[in-house]
C-alpha cells in the first residue's frame, strides 16, 4: 500500500516574514516529487511542516488521505504520529550509537523482537551496501557512507512517505551520481511516495517523476521534467532550469535580436528567452524566429560540448553545441533560432502562448560572412 501527500493553501510565517505563502500541491501515491528552487524559497519549511516539525500558520496537510494538520479544524498530529521518513541534509546521525544501533532505533520503538530487528537491520544495511560498517560509529564514516546510513535508518521502518532535504548536497560529484542511481532504484522497488528537496536542477531532472518549481514561498509550476523544460510557464522557471542558462532578450532594447523578436511578437510580450542549445550558428533554417549577424567572442569547451559566446549588437548570447563548432573568436557568423524556439513572456514574467508569435523576421545583414 502506498500513500500520497496533499497540501492545500499552506502558509508559514515567522513573525513578519513569510516563508511559505499559499502552497497547493497534490503528490499522488508512489510519485517521486522534487521540490526545486533557489535557496531560501521555503523548500525545507514545507518538508518540515509535512513531517510535523514546524506548525503551519494556515492551510491543510493530508497524508494518506488523512488530515494531519489543519488550523481551521484545530488538528495537529505530532511528528511522532505521522509515520513519515525524513532524511536530513546533514544526516543527523547519532554520534553515540553504532551504525547498526542507529538503524535499529526506529525498530525498537516499534517493539519488534530482537531477532526480527537484527534481521531487518542487516537487510537494510545490505540494501544500502554498508553491511561491513555495522559496528562503526558515525564519526568513523565518510560523507557518502553517512548518507547511506541516514537513508538506511529511515528505510528500516518502511515509511510510506519519504521526505529528503537536499540529501546529496554535501557529497562530491561522483558520489552524487552514484546516490542518484541508488535512490532511483529504491523508489522503483519500494513504490513509496518520495518528496525530495533540491536546489540543483540537474538532480531534479534526473530523479523526479514530477517537479514542483518554487519561488519565494510559492509554487511556480508543477509538471513532469519534460514539461518543465519544454513548456515553462514563467520566465523564472525557464531561467532556473537549463544549463547553461537561457538567453533572455528585453524586447524594448534596440539590439538586432530584440528588434526581430519584437517585430514578430504580440503586444503583450516584453521579453523572450532562447535556450543556448536551440540557437543555430551559420546558415539559418527555413522557418526562423530570428536570424542576426553576430561576432564570435569566445569558444568554451566543457568536455563533450562547447559553449560559444557571441556578441550581437549589445547582446551577449551563449550558444551550446554538441559538435565541435567550426568557428573561432573574431569570426562573423549568423545566429538564428527556429520559429518555435523562443519562450515569450509578458510584463509579469508569465509565458505568453506561442500563438502571439507572428511572421518570421530576417534582417538584412551587410557584413554577413556566414559559412
Amino acid at each position: 500500500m502506498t500513500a500520497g501527500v496533499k497540501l492545500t493553501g499552506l502558509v508559514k510565517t515567522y513573525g513578519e516574514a513569510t516563508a511559505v505563502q499559499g502552497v497547493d500541491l497534490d503528490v499522488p501515491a508512489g510519485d517521486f516529487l522534487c521540490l526545486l528552487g533557489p535557496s531560501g524559497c521555503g523548500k525545507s519549511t514545507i518538508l518540515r511542516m509535512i513531517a510535523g516539525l514546524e506548525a503551519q500558520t494556515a492551510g491543510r496537510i493530508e497524508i494518506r488521505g488523512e488530515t494531519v494538520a489543519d488550523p481551521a479544524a484545530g488538528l495537529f498530529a505530532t511528528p511522532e504520529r505521522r509515520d513519515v521518513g525524513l532524511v536530513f541534509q546533514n544526516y543527523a546521525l547519532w554520534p553515540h550509537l553504532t551504525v547498526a544501533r542507529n538503524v535499529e532505533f526506529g525498530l525498537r520503538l516499534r517493539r519488534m523482537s530482537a531477532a526480527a530487528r537484527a534481521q531487518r537491520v542487516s537487510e537494510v544495511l545490505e540494501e544500502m551496501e554498508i553491511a561491513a560498517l555495522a559496528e562503526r560509529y558515525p564519526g568513523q564514516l565518510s560523507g557518502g557512507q553517512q548518507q547511506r546510513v541516514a537513508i538506511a535508518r529511515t528505510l528500516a521502518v518502511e515509511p510510506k512517505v519519504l521526505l529528503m532535504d537536499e540529501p546529496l548536497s554535501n557529497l562530491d560529484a561522483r558520489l552524487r551520481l552514484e546516490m542518484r542511481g541508488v535512490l532511483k532504484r529504491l523508489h522503483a522497488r519500494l513504490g513509496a511516495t518520495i518528496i525530495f528537496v533540491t536546489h540543483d536542477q540537474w538532480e531534479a531532472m534526473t530523479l523526479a517523476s514530477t517537479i514542483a518549481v518554487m519561488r519565494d514561498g510559492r509554487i511556480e509550476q508543477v509538471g513532469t521534467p519534460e514539461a518543465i523544460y519544454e513548456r515553462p510557464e514563467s520566465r523564472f522557471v525557464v531561467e532556473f532550469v537549463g544549463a547553461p542558462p537561457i538567453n533572455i532578450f528585453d524586447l524594448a532594447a534596440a539590439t538586432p535580436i530584440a528588434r526581430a523578436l519584437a517585430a514578430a511578437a504580440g503586444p503583450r510580450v516584453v521579453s523572450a528567452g532562447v535556450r543556448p542549445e536551440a540557437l543555430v550558428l551559420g546558415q539559418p533554417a527555413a522557418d526562423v524566429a530570428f536570424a542576426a549577424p553576430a561576432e564570435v567572442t569566445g569558444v568554451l569547451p566543457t568536455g563533450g560540448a562547447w559553449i560559444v559566446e557571441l556578441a550581437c549588437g549589445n547582446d551577449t548570447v551563449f550558444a551550446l553545441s554538441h559538435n565541435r563548432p567550426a568557428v573561432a573568436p573574431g569570426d562573423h557568423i549568423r545566429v538564428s533560432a527556429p520559429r518555435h524556439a523562443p519562450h515569450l513572456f509578458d510584463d509579469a514574467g508569465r509565458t505568453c502562448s506561442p500563438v502571439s508569435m507572428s511572421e518570421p523576421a530576417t534582417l538584412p545583414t551587410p557584413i554577413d560572412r556566414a559559412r
Partner: protein
Amino acid sequence: MSGVSPKLLYSARVTLAEPATLIGIVLALFFAYLIAAPVLAMLVDAVVVQVPDARRIGAEPGTFTLYYLERALFSRVADPVFWTPLRNTLTIAFGGVAVALTLGSLFAWLLARTDMFGRRWFASALIIPYILPGWTFALAWLTLFKNRSSGGHAGWLESLGVSPPDWLAYGPVPTILILGLHYMPFVILLVGGALRNLDAQLEEQARVLGAGQRQAALRIALPLMRPALISATILVFAECIGDFGVPYVLGLPVNYDVLSTSLYRAVNSRQEGMAAVFAAAILLLGALSLSTDLWLLRNARRFATIGSRGSIDRATPLGALRLPASALAGLVFLAGVVVPLAVLALSTVMRVPGLFQPANFTLDFWVGTGLPTMAFPDGVLRTPEFWDAARNTLVIVGTASLTAGMLGLLVGHCVTRTSWTSLSGFLRQITFLPYLVPGVAFAFAFLSLFAVARGPIPALYGTNLILVLALIADQMPFASRAGVSAMMQLGREPEEAARVLGAGWTRRVSRIVLPIQRRALYTGVLLPFISGAKNLTLFALLAAPGTEVLTTFSLRLLENNYLQAANAVVLVIAAISFGGALLGQRLLGVDLASGFAK
C-alpha cells in the same frame, strides 16, 4: 469540541506537541520563585518594620518604614554602621582587583606569549589558588601572623619571637593580598585566552604596517585586550564585594567590618531590617559593576568579534629575564598554594604553634582524645560532628550539583527547542540573575524568603532543603550557560530525527540527548560540586546547627579559637575541592578552565 475555537485548539496542540515549551514554563515559574522572589523579599525587608523593632519604631510589624535606611545612611551611628563598612568594602575590592589584575595579566602574558621556563606546568599550577577555598589562605595567614592582641594561641612568628603588627596580621592588607591571589587565576584565564586569540592579528598588523613592537602593543594589542581586561576587572570586583570568608576571618580580631561581615553579624543578632539594607547595598554594588561591564563592552564587543586565524604559538624570547620570570611564577605558586597548605597542614600536628621541636608534634588534633580544648576534646577524625558535617556536605552539595547540572541541561533544552522566544529569553535571564547578586546578599535574600512560612511553603530554615535550593540557585548561571551552549552545539536535528521515527519526549531525552551530552553533564555537575564544597558564604548564613556542613563547622571552630581543628577541617575541604577537580580532569575529561568563564 464545541465551544473551543479551532485556532485555539490548534495552538494548544502545537504547543503540547513539543513538551520543551511546557517544561520551560514550569522551569520559569520555579526559577522565578527560587531566584527572583528571594531578591524581592529581601529588598522589601529593608523598608518594612521587622518584628523585633516594632516597639522601638512604634509601628506594626510589616508596615512601611524608612527607619532602617535612615539609620544606615543618615543617623548618628550611620558612619560606624554603614559608611565605614562601605568604605572598607570598596577598599578591599579595589585592592583585590589591583593585585589580581597586576599579577594575573603579567602571568597571562608570560604564559601565553613568552618562552619562560616551565610554561606548561605553571599554566596549570597557577590556577590552583582558585580551586582552593579563599579563606584557606586567610586561616593560613592567621596561623602565621596572628599576634597576642587576639585570643587563643599566638601565630608562628609570635612564637619565634617576632611580633607582627596588627596592620600586617589583620584587616585590609592581608585581605587584599589574599583576595588578589585567590582571584588571580580568573584574570590569567580571561586575559590569557584573549591574548592567545590575538596573536595572529597582532603579528600581521605589526609586520604589514612596519610598526615597532612597542607601538603595536600600545596601539593594537591594548585596545583589543580591553574587553578581556574590563571583564576580568569587574568580575573580580563583584566577587570581592560578595566575599564573606576572607574579610571575616581576618577582620574579626580588629573589628574591620565590610558590608558582608556586617550583614552576617546583623543576621546573627536578629537585625533583619539592617541586614536587608546591607544586602541591598551589596546587591546595588554588584549590579552596578556588572552593568558597567555590559555598558563598557557594548562597543568593544563589536570589534572583538573579528575572528583571528588559529593562534600562532609565537613566543617572545625573554633572554636574561627567562629565569627571573619563572622564579617569580614559582614564588607566587609558593605563596598561593604551597605555603598556605603546608602551614595549615603543619599547624594541625603541632601542639604549640610555631614551636619546631619533636616533642611538640602530635597527631592528637586529628585522631587524639582528651584534648585540652574544652568543648572539643577529641581529634577531628574522632568527632562525630565532623563526620556529620562531612556527610551533610556530600549529601547537600552532591544533590545540589547533580540537580543544577540536570536543570542546566534542561534549561538549555527548553531555551533551544521552544518556539516561544520570550520564554527562552526569560529562562536565560532569570538563571543568570544570581550572578549579578553577590553571594552574601543572595544568601540573605534566601533567608528573607524562606525563613518563615509563606503560603503553602513551610519555613525552610534549619532544613537541608534550603541549602540545596540556595546552592542550586547560586550555580544556575554556570549550569544553564553550559547547558545552553551544549544544546546549541548539538543542534536540533538529532532529536528531530528521533521524533520522526516515533520517539516521544522522554525517549528522546534519555536515549539521544543525555548520552550525547554526557561530557557536558559531567562538567555541569562537577564544577558546581567543587564550588559548592568550598562555599562558605551561602552556608554561613543559611546553615543551622542541625544542618552543619564542613565549611560552617570549621568556621565555628575558628570562632571558638580552636585553630588547629579549624585548619584540619579546612584541609579536608581543600582536599575535596582539589581531588574533585583532579578526578574530573583525569577521569571524565572535564575542562576546568570552562568553569571560569561562568
